[in-house]
């Protein structure tokens, strides 16, 4: 870490960007000022809607047409970017400053080879000629740690994994050795192990090339891992700024304290398995996806779930942890019979529900409920909240009036006002919608609740509230909970028992304390090792706060 005395690479002075009239606040960002020096990583942290990406987009000229910077300056090497004409900016983008986006698949052109896309950056700026350009592409691919660059440069993006794609995007950004690299949530769409590799890569290239890196993220773990300095944004205002150590360990502003307090800490509390009755016993569950197999195509067989067994007791939380493609969500779908299963038994209250037909199973559905992942897609936009919650009990034979009375109670139970009953889902925020989803599941008084990545789409502070709500409801109603997640920190915090999935198999299973402190399987060790910001313990702040 160096805080040089020389002029900063990038200096933002009193930048204000107005929002169109009728929004929930007059400014997207207001009076923000910060400096970025060459050779440092500045993390801009904030929740969704805090305006953390705004200044980054303003620098790259990516603001939508209806948002105009009203006041302030963006000084890049002493020149005000807001005062330059479009032609000058075009010449600078990619050459002096480059950007890495969140979703590597949509940032790459699907019909162009990887090599061509990197070469295109150079062609646009007339850098290097034919031979040299091809050599440079190879060099870049090698530099970002992609295997076998000579073959890979002729590959199309769809053949690469998410992490490899993000490496290609980074190679494109580095093509002309920019002085400033802006990374907008570059690891959010990636698995933890891949995320750790990409963070490593960004740190390495920053150190080698001496660039200034502006890293926009919502994840305090990532901040702890990579930042030299941190800027915290709340509702368009820069509330706190300082070195990583200062902000993370001695936060001054109450908002920062609250945010850090909400970060899942991954410190497993010992809960012990209660001796209560078993709700669900899964034996040797199998699910295979077969694609293709037509006249001219070869069959492709994927063992999504391959011989998985576990039990869930009343009042206990079972965590199913794994990366994308590990089969963890498929298990959830199998339990709810949203997809057929290919083998094994699902013993629910002593009855094998896998053998029942859809018609026979329907009366039992009320006992197994689900909280879905996406709070925006899981509620019918054309139904009122009241209807969404009462639909389930009504379908199961409860009289409408009784169901409605119960729905109002449930809304209060999950922390919403009773007036929510007659409103439509689009009038609620993500966290509130997830509460509605929970109320819908609880309306049927289930014995088992499956939560599939139910808090992943939420901001940390909202996430903490929803987790608390779930834990509280579970204790009160004594339900069994299956918590499917990719976030090991969350799993450690709330689960009584954790199973780790890898390629459709359970590689390790045990109480969270054992899994996190003394992982046995090599994959679990890798997974735990990849958690960003392990050395940083946010609970210290919580204790102090």
């Amino acid at each position: 870490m160096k805080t040089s005395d020389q002029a900063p690479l990038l200096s933002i002075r009193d930048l204000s960007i107005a929002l169109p009239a009728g929004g929930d606040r007059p400014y997207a960002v207001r009076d923000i000022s910060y400096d970025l020096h060459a050779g440092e990583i500045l993390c801009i942290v904030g929740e969704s809607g805090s305006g953390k990406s705004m200044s980054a987009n303003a620098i790259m000229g990516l603001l939508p047409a209806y948002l105009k910077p009203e006041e302030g300056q963006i000084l890049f090497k002493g020149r005000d970017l807001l005062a330059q004409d479009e032609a000058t900016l075009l010449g600078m983008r990619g050459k002096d400053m480059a950007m890495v986006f969140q979703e590597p698949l949509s940032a790459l052109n699907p019909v162009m080879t990887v090599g061509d896309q990197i070469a295109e950056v150079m062609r646009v700026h007339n850098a290097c000629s034919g031979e040299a350009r091809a050599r440079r592409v190879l060099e870049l691919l090698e530099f970002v740690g992609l295997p076998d660059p000579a073959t890979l440069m002729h590959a199309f993006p769809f053949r690469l994994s998410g992490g490899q794609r993000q490496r290609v995007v980074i190679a494109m950004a580095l093509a002309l050795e920019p002085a400033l690299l802006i990374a907008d949530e570059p690891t959010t769409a990636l698995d933890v192990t891949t995320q750790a590799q990409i963070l490593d890569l960004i740190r390495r290239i920053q150190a080698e090339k001496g660039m200034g890196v502006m890293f926009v993220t919502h994840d305090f773990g990532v901040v702890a891992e990579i930042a030299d300095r941190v800027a915290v944004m709340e509702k368009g205002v820069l509330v706190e700024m300082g070195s990583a150590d200062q902000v993370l360990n001695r936060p001054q502003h109450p908002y920062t304290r609250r945010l850090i307090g909400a970060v899942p800490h991954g410190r497993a509390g010992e809960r012990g398995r209660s001796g209560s009755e078993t709700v669900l016993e899964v034996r040797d569950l199998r699910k295979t996806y077969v694609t293709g197999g037509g006249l001219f195509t070869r069959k492709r067989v994927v063992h999504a779930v391959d011989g998985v067994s576990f039990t869930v007791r009343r009042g206990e939380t079972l965590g199913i942890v794994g990366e994308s493609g590990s089969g963890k969500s498929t298990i959830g779908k199998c339990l709810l019979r949203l997809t057929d299963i290919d083998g094994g038994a699902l013993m629910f209250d002593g009855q094998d529900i896998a053998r029942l037909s859809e018609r026979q199973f329907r009366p039992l559905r009320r006992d197994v409920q689900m909280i879905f992942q996406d709070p925006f897609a899981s509620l019918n936009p054309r139904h009122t909240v009241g209807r969404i919650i009462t639909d389930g009990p009504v379908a199961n034979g409860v009289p409408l009036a009784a169901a409605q009375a119960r729905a109002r109670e449930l809304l209060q139970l999950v922390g919403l006002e009773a007036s929510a009953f007659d409103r439509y889902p689009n009038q609620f925020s993500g966290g509130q919608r997830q509460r509605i989803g929970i109320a819908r599941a609880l309306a049927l008084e289930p014995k088992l609740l499956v939560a599939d990545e139910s808090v992943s789409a939420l901001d940390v502070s909202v996430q903490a509230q929803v987790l608390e709500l779930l834990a509280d409801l579970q204790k009160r109603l004594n339900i069994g909970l299956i918590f499917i997640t990719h976030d090991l920190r969350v799993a450690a915090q709330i689960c009584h028992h954790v199973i780790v999935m890898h390629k459709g198999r359970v590689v390790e299973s045990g109480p969270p304390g054992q899994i996190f402190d003394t992982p046995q399987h090599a994959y679990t060790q890798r997974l735990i090792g990849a958690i960003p910001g392990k050395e940083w313990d946010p609970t210290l702040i919580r204790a102090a706060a």
Partner: protein
Amino acid sequence: MKAFLQRYCRNYGAVIGLLVLLGVLALAVLAPIFYEESPWLMVAEPLVQPFTDPALPFGTDMLGRDITAGMLYGARVSLLVGVISTAVALAVGIAVGAVAGYCGGRVDDALMRITEFFQTIPQLAMAVVIVAIFNPSIYSIVAAISVVSWPPVARLVRGEFLSLKQREFVQAAVVIGQKPVRIIATQILPNAMSPIIVSASFMVATAILTESALAFLGLGDRNMMSWGFMIGAARTMIREAWWMSVWPGVAILLTVLSINLIGEGLNDAMNPQLRRRGE
């Protein structure tokens, strides 16, 4: 609802279309008040020029029938055929598309092959054949137009259902134990309604054109005066009496155009995001 009207009214073409259609509708409904007698009745000299006799503003045809009366009664047939055949086609198309899209698998395969079978035959040729087999009457015409116009609806509805079925709120409905029929009717269909309504408005226009084409070919209902029949009857007199074919032609043009404008307006009003993005 108020916001919906506001968005609709932002499209001036659609407002004009609505006014024109309402005018045509009013004239069709009030036809028997203006002209108590049948439009088939010979009321004056043959081939009276338009705008010469105030009692016969659009002139008369070669048998001395009042063209104005024919136009008003023709509007009834056109609108009736357009609306009823569209309603029938929608009912069939939504049912087939919903079942195919929701069930998937073999049911979907079977229903879609049947749909494709109907789509491989040119629409007008098929309508002509059906009307010719079952004697020309208002019923056989409506049936023929419905038979040729449901397949596109079925395909549209199936596509909407295939994508909506994957949405989490539909899965949630399965999980809370709702029956398939209920899920189709209360969860998926309301969310698929906007493209269906928009395409229905265009179907009404097409149905009016098809009815005119059938009547032009002499396959109209013999008891009902229609615009297509008037144009068909005028074709032998096209050099002597241009007005005989021009007035019903203009009527068809205005009605179909106004319905298409309404369709555009509905599309804008129902997909507000889509429109704003294009601006």
